[in-house]
């Protein structure tokens, strides 16, 4: 996935209504009319949201004559999840290195403490 597409995916998902629509499409395909149903908004407004999601590659609309149901492109999600998980993994590796440094610091502090105790007795 190219950087600009990732940006579009993030931007598309920044809107709570669009996140909600995506959540509903994850259950199954739906028409624009069906998606508009639970919201107090026009079909036109929903169409605009769908266009943003389509441009981001998250949703596709089949050319099924009248109905033209919206379909969630699940693999785009999987890709994004992979990117982010890879990123998280790098942070995890970094902090496991920090764990090692901190363990060594504790060891040094303890041996210093023991030396001081030894000198005092």
């Amino acid at each position: 996935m190219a950087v600009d597409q990732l940006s579009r995916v993030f931007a598309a998902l920044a809107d709570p209504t669009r996140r909600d629509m995506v959540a509903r499409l994850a259950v199954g395909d739906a028409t624009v009319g069906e998606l508009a149903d639970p919201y107090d908004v026009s079909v036109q407004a929903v169409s605009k949201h769908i266009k943003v999601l389509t441009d981001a590659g998250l949703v596709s609309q089949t050319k099924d004559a009248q109905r033209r149901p919206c379909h969630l492109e699940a693999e785009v999600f999987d890709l994004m999840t992979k990117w982010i998980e890879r990123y998280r993994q790098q942070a995890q590796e970094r902090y496991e290195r920090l764990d090692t440094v901190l363990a060594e610091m504790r060891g040094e502090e303890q041996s210093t403490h023991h030396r001081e105790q030894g000198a005092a007795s």
Partner: protein
Amino acid sequence: MNATSNRYQVSIEADPGLPIIRMTRDFDATPAQLMRAHTDPELFARWVGPNGMQTKILDWDATTGGRWRYVAGRDGEEYGFHGSFHEVGEDRIVQTFTFDGQPDGVALETLRFEDLGDGRTRLHAQSLVDSFEGRDQWLASGMETGVDEGYAKLDALIAELR
């Protein structure tokens, strides 16, 4: 406590409404130890990584108003980073972060060390990037170069979507 099975996991969240990346991670250390590991250049260079890269500190003044610069290198490839320490407090570091490869980009990073007691501390790290595009480029650069700066996960969002 079993050290191998009890690794603390990084939790990451990319804010959907702001170009912010938030991260938390617990450590078996006091806030003072964690602060030292972030401000002592020799200690910092040992863990900032990424794996397989050597970090060379070129400039380091971890005090309020100070500055930092380092390069991470591997096989002749070098990636430089620099920034300012805006504030170095008791349990908080506020600093700027710039990747030399994108000199116009700058992130504002806030690190906070929360004392959990019993020698444990929770690190809260927040990076405010100057645009969504900037944040997403950071995500992408993490993939391409292994430079693991900036953190993102949409755990909460993804969970919401499923």
